């Protein structure tokens, strides 16, 4: 455990040295500052017209809608943009570690290869968790102070977004070990995150275009194998909006994907010569 914590700690430092997480932190601080200014200078009554589009005059409902509006306004770009930046910054962790002269030193220490993978994985994940937690908790505090809405729904996005990142990061780790290429790891992850996952969510519509059972089976297989980041995003928004989780399938299949990728990473890494 000590070894994992040590590697995790230095992965964290590596992430800090990249500046990307500091940028993320800076942007988060800026967002919090802007929200603080808006909340400090604009009264709730002034904000109501923003969401008062259906002509109802129930102030309590409108305040509730307003808080949901703000929460969603933060979470949707945080999910997309935050994960985009996080993938970008961690994609080189494994290829860098595997560089000649670097991996030799690491493997010459009394640390098992699985501990190295766990340490790297935990380090990147904790980094993202802290960044997401910083922004989300900050927004939660501001909304709570302004609207006296201390509901926990916004905070559920912290584990939800971190989990989505961990699923993708597990794939980055495996691709990094197999290919030692950060660019390939990044590209394939973006491909799944931005192209495959949204497409596969709409697979029912695709089936309408091609009347083929084999194709349906193939697309279904790909759907269940790949992580469901689009659906995880929808679950995050649902949680934030207080609707809860309606379908757990995307969570457990993505969790299986994470476990499979990490297991394969450890097995492959343990067998390789450096």
């Amino acid at each position, binding site marked *: 455990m000590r070894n994992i914590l040590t590697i995790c700690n230095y992965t964290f430092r590596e992430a800090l040295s990249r500046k990307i997480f500091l940028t993320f932190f800076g942007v988060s601080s800026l967002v919090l500052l802007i929200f603080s200014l808006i909340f400090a200078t604009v009264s709730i009554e002034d904000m109501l017209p923003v969401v008062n589009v259906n002509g109802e005059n129930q102030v309590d409902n409108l305040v509730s809608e307003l808080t949901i509006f703000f929460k969603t306004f933060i979470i949707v770009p945080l999910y997309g943009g935050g994960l985009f930046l996080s993938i970008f910054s961690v994609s080189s962790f494994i290829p860098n570690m595997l560089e000649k002269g670097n991996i030799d030193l690491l493997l010459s220490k*009394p640390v098992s290869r699985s501990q190295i993978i766990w340490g790297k994985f935990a380090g990147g994940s904790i980094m993202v968790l802290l960044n997401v937690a910083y922004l989300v908790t900050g927004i939660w505090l501001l909304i709570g102070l302004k609207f006296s809405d201390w509901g926990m729904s916004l905070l559920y996005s912290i584990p939800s977004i971190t989990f989505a990142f961990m699923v993708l990061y597990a794939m980055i780790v495996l691709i990094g070990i197999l290919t030692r290429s950060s660019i390939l790891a990044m590209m394939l992850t973006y491909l799944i995150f931005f192209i495959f996952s949204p497409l596969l969510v709409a697979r029912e519509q695709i089936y309408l275009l091609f009347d083929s059972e084999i194709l349906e089976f193939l697309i279904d297989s790909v759907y269940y194998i790949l992580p469901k980041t689009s659906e995880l995003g929808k679950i995050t928004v649902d949680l934030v909006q207080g609707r809860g989780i309606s379908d757990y399938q995307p969570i457990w299949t993505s969790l299986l994907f994470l476990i499979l990728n990490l297991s394969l990473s450890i097995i492959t890494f343990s067998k390789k010569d450096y």
Partner: protein
Amino acid sequence: MHVINVNNLTKVYKARKRTADVLALNNFSLQVEEGKIFGLLGPNGAGKTTFIKILLGITHPTSGTAEMLGKPIQNYTIKARIGYLPENHRYPGYLNAEQILIYFSKLSGYYPSDLNSRINFLLHLVKMEKWKRVKIKKYSKGMMQRLGLALSMINDPDVIFLDEPTDGVDPIGRKEIRDVLVNLKNEGKTIFLNSHLLSEVELISDEVAILHKGNLVQRGSVQELTTTKEIYEITLDKALVMESINAINETGIIERHGNKYTIKVATNEELNRIIDELRQNGYYFQSIVPKKHSLEEMFINLINDKEKNAS
């Protein structure tokens, strides 16, 4: 006690085509005693680095067994007592010397209460104390090498593997590194040295092994390997009158400088016959010394012979 005990170690690097497989080590066996400086020599591609990597668990052997400090190398916990300076090392540039020494100490499972004192001591030893808080990315090649040496010692290891430790270091720095290694040996540590700089290996190694194409071709003390038994340098009190000495005429003089002669003899009896004859003829010996090759000469001759035999 043998700190390294390797038996029939073979390593084949598999290629896509079987004919392109590379045999890096071929049934290699080696035992290294505790408290010695052991030099492993060989031309490029001989298998030296592969051997160290197998011992350290960086590369897996194809067959054979290896033990370090009495335990099989598969037991990674033994590496807590090992230090390593790899060739072409890369240290994280965003850390400074102090930070990386702490990092490697932790990774080695070494948590002494006086870690800071040890870091200061090691940085002083490798003349890097002024660079303690400077980011590694600003270091020169020689400074990186000095830092690497300090890193290999941070966990107070019993065995230290050094792959080209003086690479990129100036002559004064090399001398300082040699002194450090000799001091470590005097403390009872075992040093395993891979180096192309044979003159340096010759200066500090107790024992040397030579690898060629994955095979052990020679092994012994530096004294044994550099001494040429059949050739002697004799120094007399006066120059020889050649015609008067039959034995030496039969043998033949290889070199002559004033009253110093290099002779080649086939046996000890022949050497003693020459000595007797010279003494009977009124010559006095100032010295008789077996002619020594440098380690480099011996190495080049040996490898050339192997290449010729192979072709």
